[in-house]
């Protein structure tokens, strides 16, 4: 019986494959599309990337890339979309539009709704959506349209915990101190870091006790707010929102937030224990801080240990969330982690999208998705023998050309920001998680998830009117919140200014703003 079922299954599978791979499925003559592709500084030339050649060979679809540097991307894309003329056929890259922008331009008819195309020409992607309804929920706009193909990667790196803390173990050992577990201990340790010549270069003043970067959620110190109530986050469209038992909360209007600002200022910023330059540094400066002869940083916030550069990486260990002054703590987590709504969008100027969509469907075939994300077989990954004891089919090449880091080796050869979808079962059976992701996964599971009780607002798509309202009132509200947050942490004054701040937020329409987020949350997850 069992045999019969598997035989039938295999037969069904073959038939569906046969249907997909009919001779004339892909165009007989080469078809070209103009595609804007967002390039990181680390990326090699997209025109030379092997994976795109392999995919072109298979589909007969040629992508005519306009490679736009990450730094210019947003301005260029927004100006062009707002102009509404001379649009490329597609915008290609994870993070190429925020979900607010996606709805804004989708709702105005600048982006093609893809529902029918997915239904007809994307067998691979359709199968993924059926297996993972949460992905479908995340990319479907309230009007029922799907405007984007997502970039999903459930590898733990884009994991549930956006930010961890790391501390210099070598310095701790030298001073005979332990990894701190409470906020008081952290204060004592950082004070010792500040006063001693921990890195042993003869200068007791070049040690930066703790650093952060006031941008995004990965390097920010918002997690520390959790000791006083809810953790705070600067992440994308969910800025400062969390959900507690179904109730949407704007963290910066809570009492705990006020206490956190006052405490962190008094005990850390005023004493120079957390570096004020975190508010003004750009990313290049942040990354350069620890690249000298000796380590300069005592502790830092980051999404991954190697983020601050590999020079002194071995000196650091992860630090678990600390207990606050009254013995409680909380850290923030994301539920929709691993799903990036936008990986590829087609514009209204794409006259004949069918072949491009067929090409895109190939990225959701794990064989190609894997090579986009982790490099081509033979270059960045190797095929394992069928009976390999690890149980995996592929593994990483771990020897990089001279002087290259893993990221440089990877981003130089392939385009890991593509639309694709690699889920947990892929990492369990086909290719193991990257080493860095494994380490991060372990830290999260052991230290962070047990105390991660602040649920950051999930990625959701808003209705067109709500989106306009958010864009309108939210801009002022968020800029006031972030201006004051920086000011209170760095210079203090939260107690004196709090009442006026809340009154201003209310006058700006805070309640309406929260209500929109609450309503959308309720619609998506039920009351």
């Amino acid at each position: 019986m069992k045999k019969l079922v598997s035989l039938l299954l295999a037969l069904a599978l073959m038939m569906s494959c046969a249907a997909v791979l009919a001779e004339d499925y892909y165009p007989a003559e080469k078809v070209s599309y103009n595609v804007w592709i967002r390039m990181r500084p680390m990326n090699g030339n997209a025109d030379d990337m092997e994976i795109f050649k392999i995919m072109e060979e298979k589909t007969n679809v040629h992508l005519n890339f306009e490679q736009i540097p990450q730094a210019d991307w947003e301005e260029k894309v927004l100006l062009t979309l707002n102009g509404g003329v001379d649009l490329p056929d597609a915008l290609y890259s994870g993070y190429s539009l925020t979900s607010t922008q996606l709805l804004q331009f989708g709702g105005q008819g600048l982006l093609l709704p893809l529902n029918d195309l997915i239904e007809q020409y994307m067998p691979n992607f359709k199968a993924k959506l059926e297996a993972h309804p949460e992905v479908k929920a995340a990319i479907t706009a309230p009007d029922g349209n799907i405007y984007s193909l997502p970039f999903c990667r459930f590898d733990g790196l884009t994991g549930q915990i956006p930010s961890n803390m790391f501390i210099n173990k070598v310095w701790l050992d030298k001073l005979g101190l332990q990894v701190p577990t409470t906020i008081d201990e952290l204060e004592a340790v950082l004070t010792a870091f500040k006063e001693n010549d921990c890195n042993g270069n003869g200068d007791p003043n070049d040690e930066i006790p703790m650093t952060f970067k006031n941008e995004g959620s990965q390097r920010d110190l918002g997690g520390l707010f959790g000791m006083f109530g809810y953790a705070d986050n600067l992440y994308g469209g969910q800025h400062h929102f969390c959900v507690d038992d179904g109730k949407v909360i704007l963290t910066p209007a809570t009492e705990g937030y006020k206490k956190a600002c006052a405490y962190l200022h008094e005990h850390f910023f005023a004493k120079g224990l957390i570096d004020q330059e975190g508010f003004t540094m750009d990313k290049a400066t942040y990354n350069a801080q620890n690249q000298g002869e000796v380590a300069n940083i005592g502790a830092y916030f980051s999404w991954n240990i190697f983020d601050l550069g590999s020079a002194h990486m071995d000196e650091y260990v992860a630090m678990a969330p600390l207990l606050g002054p009254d013995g409680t703590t909380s850290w923030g987590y994301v539920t929709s982690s691993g799903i990036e709504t936008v990986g590829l969008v087609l514009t209204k100027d794409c006259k004949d999208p069918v072949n491009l969509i067929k090409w895109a469907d190939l990225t959701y075939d794990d064989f190609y998705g894997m090579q986009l994300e982790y490099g081509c077989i033979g270059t960045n990954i190797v095929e394992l023998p069928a009976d390999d004891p690890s149980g995996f089919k592929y593994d990483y090449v771990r020897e990089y050309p001279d002087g290259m880091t893993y990221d440089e080796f990877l981003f130089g050869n392939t385009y890991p920001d593509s639309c694709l979808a690699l889920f947990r079962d892929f990492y369990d059976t086909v290719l193991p998680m990257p080493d860095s992701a494994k380490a991060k996964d372990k830290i999260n599971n052991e230290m962070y998830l047990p105390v991660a009780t602040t649920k950051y607002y999930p990625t959701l798509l808003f209705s067109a009117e709500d989106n306009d309202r958010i864009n309108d009132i939210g801009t002022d509200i968020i800029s006031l919140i972030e201006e004051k947050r920086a000011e209170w942490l760095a210079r203090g004054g939260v107690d004196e200014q709090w009442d006026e701040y809340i009154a201003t937020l209310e006058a700006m329409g805070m309640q309406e703003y929260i209500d929109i987020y609450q309503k959308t949350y309720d619609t998506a997850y039920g009351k």
Partner: protein
Amino acid sequence: MQLSAKTLRQGKWHMRKKMIRQHWPLYLFLLPTVVYFLLFRFYPLYGLQLAFKNYRVVDGIAGSPWVGLDNFRRFFSTADFGKLMWNTLGVSVFTLIFTFPLPIILALLLNQLPSLRYKKLVQTTVYAPHFISTVVMVGMIFLFTSPSSGLINKIIEGFGGKAIHFTAEPGWFVPMYVISEIWQSTGWGSILYLAALAGVSPELHEAALVDGANKFQRVWHIDIPGILPTIVIMMILNAGKIMNVGFEKAYLMQTSLNIRASEIIATYVYKRGVLKSQISFATAVGLFESVVNMILVLIVNWISRSVTDSSLF
């Protein structure tokens, strides 16, 4: 015999045609400028209607629905309006006060130098910073003023002072902006005045020397009156730019800690219009800025016409 008005008009037109034919090369020279203004200065005015509309890309500029003064009302009622006006005026007025007279003084001083070689050397040195791009300039500011490693703070600490986090203090935004502006623009600005000074007749100076005037008196009574029309014209033109603070520099110098002082109209327009795609709202704010500029030009022009007799129009 009486000429009819018609004949007179025809005669005038005839004369004009003759003039154009005679001096056609001059008109040809004028052509690129006219084309430039039509293309880049007048044609974009068409888009100004967006300030009174609710722009939707698919409807286009002409097809978007009218909303009257809604966008302006929204801008005037935002909590930031007062702060934006104050910051913009603060940055520009201080920039004008400090950067306007300095090139004049520099030009007068350079003009007095007897050694031509030394004069050229100084001139080249002081206008070299003009060629540094804004991005690099702001990068330099951040490097020099860094509290942990910046040159300026090392000097302050060397004298026993306490390091100042310049880029984080709202109070330091305007001084840093103005000082770097002075450093970058003074030398370049003086070229114009040096040219004007070259036009002052040497006979006047010779006559003054004969009369026993000293250097200071010659500068005061001959050089300055000689270049006064240039100064006035420059003054009026600069007044038109008062609200028009260089966008890039302010934007790049913004940090989350000095934003209270560094958010100006131009950066606000960029954030709203480009980054948040609120095109109509940003157009309205930009139009408001231009109207204020226009009024300022008219006022300064009127003052200068009644006081000094020289004016733009």
